């Protein structure tokens, strides 16, 4: 009621309003309450905009009052244009608001004259954008902000005046504005507690494609959306508006995944990004996208795989027959013979396949910055030169794209467990893992044999007690597999687990701080089996006492027996600084009952206790 009175008061003092004030106020109030208007103002479910830039709003209260912002926007749209600088006019800075509002009201009644906006037209019309793709970059364990993957939008052009390829398209990115020399630990903490601004930026897609696929060795998945042209136009206008706007970045739930999903929701009725969730992963957005219909059709029109250099190497190597693989092995083992290597016994297409595999291999191996100091740079050059000496011809590009990221299970996991302990009474356990995966359930979009979770909690309970079994604030196992069997195929691994744990499984009142870390190297070469040895150290104690620190050796063997069945054996020998020794043995098995349900068995044994757990878990 107060809002209506305010509206009437404002309208009475607005000389440009020719419409009946009461009718006008009613219409405007309805427009202000419209979901689309509030999406254009980037309002969250709490009625507050996620945008923190004052310049995004014309009204002082625009970040929380959609009606005030609507009135102020109409006033700004009616302001005379500076002919010398039309791009600074409100219509040109907020083309989506203008475009949408002119479908809701008679702009002439508000003295609004449509303007031409040179810069926006250049952004919009010259690119002639015919569709929009969501690009999913798989996780990258070298950068905390990219552990869970990343999302981009690609604006796909069609019928532009000059010929065009995907690489020339424009990409829209969302990320925290982090100083270039920011300390990594500070970066993580500030990212979690919301100390960074964030923004949408535009950049040619080839920058991202090169960086992700060649430098960071991350696969890209492109999901092209089946949007209609009016929706695309509205989205482009909104993207233009957002390029100058700041957000507040929160690593877990106001990240690239959430805001990309929120942006796309402008033209969708379904929710892609749930603001109530405490965490939001890019893979969740891809799963939601794949489940959404748009005007009776699936929203996702096509899915295209753009493999990384590493994935191309693995797939090209796997495509070779044994004779061709033997040649690759021979050359890799004696690369000084590469120059002038005689491949004439093979058909030309086979020669191409062999040399392309060698190019990928040496590219993967070399440290470019070392120049002539790294012999692999020489080998890479020789492999490329060998390709020049052959007749031109295409490379294999028909890569296996079966592991589409939306096909995987949901990211969060909860299980209930029954535990038999040799030292204490049997008890129950509840495990909660907000996201994302462990070695046994790493699948589409994850790093095989590896593990990644934050805030993973295991609570134990029985008739007589309720206790903390384990808390991992950060738990990462980055395990690299040598899938080609070629020497040097990078298989350096590392792990880090920080949080709290019981000193012994199931013990009473024995919670301790834990830090467990190490580096390792993988053995063997198989897509289904990985064996990695580690050396490391850590700490497990109630107080900071050096006697609770230890050095450790560790062996992990992970086996994916089938699509549903996986298992892992872990042996860790700890050498405490006070002379104690502790041998920990863990055997885990998992059977996937369906996509979002599994059954697990775990056996844990240390020097004094053996524990067996049966678990039923579901993904959500």
């Amino acid at each position, binding site marked *: 009621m107060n809002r209506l009175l305010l509206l009437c008061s404002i309208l009475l003092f607005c000389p440009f309003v020719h419409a009946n004030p009461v009718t006008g106020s009613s219409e405007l109030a309805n427009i202000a309450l419209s979901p689309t208007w509030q999406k254009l103002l980037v309002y969250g479910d709490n009625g507050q905009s996620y945008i923190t830039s004052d310049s995004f709003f014309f009204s002082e209260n625009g970040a929380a009052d959609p009606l005030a912002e609507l009135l102020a926007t109409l006033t700004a749209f009616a302001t005379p244009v500076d002919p010398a600088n039309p791009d600074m006019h409100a219509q040109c800075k907020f083309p989506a608001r203008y475009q949408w509002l002119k479908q809701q009201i008679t702009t002439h009644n508000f003295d609004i004259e449509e303007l031409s906006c040179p810069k926006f037209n250049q952004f919009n019309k010259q690119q002639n954008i015919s569709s929009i793709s969501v690009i999913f970059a798989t996780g990258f364990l070298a950068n905390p902000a990219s552990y869970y993957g990343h999302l981009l939008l690609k604006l796909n052009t069609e019928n532009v005046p000059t*010929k065009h390829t995907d690489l*020339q398209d424009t990409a829209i990115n969302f990320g925290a504005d982090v100083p270039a020399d920011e300390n990594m630990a500070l970066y993580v903490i500030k990212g979690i507690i919301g100390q960074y601004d964030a923004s949408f930026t*535009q950049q040619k897609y*080839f920058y991202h494609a090169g*960086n992700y696929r060649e430098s960071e060795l991350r696969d890209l998945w492109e999901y092209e959306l089946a949007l209609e042209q009016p929706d695309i136009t509205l989205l482009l206008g909104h993207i233009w508006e957002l390029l100058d706007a700041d957000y507040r970045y929160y690593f877990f739930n106001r990240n690239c995944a959430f805001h990309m999903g929120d942006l796309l929701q402008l033209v969708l009725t379904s929710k892609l990004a749930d603001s109530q969730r405490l965490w939001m992963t890019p893979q969740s957005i891809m799963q939601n996208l794949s489940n959404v219909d748009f005007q009776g059709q699936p929203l996702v029109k096509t899915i295209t795989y753009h493999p990384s250099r590493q994935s191309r190497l693995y797939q090209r190597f796997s495509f070779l027959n044994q004779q061709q693989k033997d040649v690759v092995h021979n050359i890799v083992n004696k690369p000084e013979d590469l120059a002038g290597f005689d491949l004439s016994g093979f058909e030309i297409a086979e020669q191409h396949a062999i040399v392309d595999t060698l190019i990928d291999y040496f590219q993967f191996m070399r440290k470019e910055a070392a*120049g002539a100091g790294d012999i692999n740079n020489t080998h890479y050059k020789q492999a*490329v030169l060998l*390709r020049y000496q052959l007749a031109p*011809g295409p490379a294999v590009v028909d890569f296996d794209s079966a592991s589409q990221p939306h096909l995987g299970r949901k990211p969060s996991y909860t299980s209930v467990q029954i535990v038999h302990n040799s030292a204490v009474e049997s008890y129950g356990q509840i495990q909660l893992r907000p996201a994302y995966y462990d070695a046994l359930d790493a699948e589409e979009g994850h790093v095989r044999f590896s593990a990644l979770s934050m805030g993973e909690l295991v609570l134990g309970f029985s008739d007589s007690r309720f206790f903390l079994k384990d808390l991992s604030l950060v738990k990462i196992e980055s395990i690299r597999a040598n899938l080609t069997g070629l020497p040097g195929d990078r298989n350096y691994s590392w792990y880090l687990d920080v949080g709290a744990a019981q000193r012994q499984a199931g013990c009473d009142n024995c919670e301790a701080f834990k830090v467990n870390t190490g580096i390792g190297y993988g053995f063997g070469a198989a897509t289904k089996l990985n064996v990695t040895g580690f050396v490391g150290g850590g700490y497990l104690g109630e107080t900071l006492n050096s006697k609770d620190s230890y050095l450790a050796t560790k062996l992990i063997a992970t086996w994916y027996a089938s699509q549903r069945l996986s298992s892992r054996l872990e042996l860790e020998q700890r050498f405490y600084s006070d002379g104690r020794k502790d041998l920990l043995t863990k055997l885990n098995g998992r059977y996937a009952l369906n996509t979002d349900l599994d059954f697990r068995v775990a056996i844990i044994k240390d020097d004094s206790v053996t524990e067996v757990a049966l678990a039923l878990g579901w993904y959500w």
Partner: protein
Amino acid sequence: MKYSAIAALTVSMTLSASAYADKAPGSGPNPFSDCGIGAALFPEHKVLAVTSNVIWDIGTTAVTSATASPETCSGKNVDAAAFILNSYDSLIEETARGEGEHLLALMNILEVTPEQHNKVIGSLRTEMSQHIADELYLSADKREKSQLYYSTVISAVTSA
């Protein structure tokens, strides 16, 4: 001194391209040597724009290649130079194959007609195979290699 052969080669290629200054693809200044390609790659960072002829880092920090550089240094040549620098390895590999998505994109940026592709790529392939075979090639950094590739492709386009 160690880059003298490549530098000399680059200068001669650039001069060669400049001789065709009235033709579209090779016209205007060389973005590497005359404009400072950094002006295009770092439009919002004036210091970087000045120094990026020496320091090139177009990984995650790269910004758009939109043309905020001096007018004479904007346009397709700068776009091509930026694209080459960012996609160098893919380009030399695809040049060896005679085809590929990066090579096609470069032809598009330089507005090479489809009818001219084979001739331009064939010439580029021949020249680049000689450059890569040069002993000094390994001593050059990414910017120098990119500049050489740029000069070679501009020469191939203007000669087509």
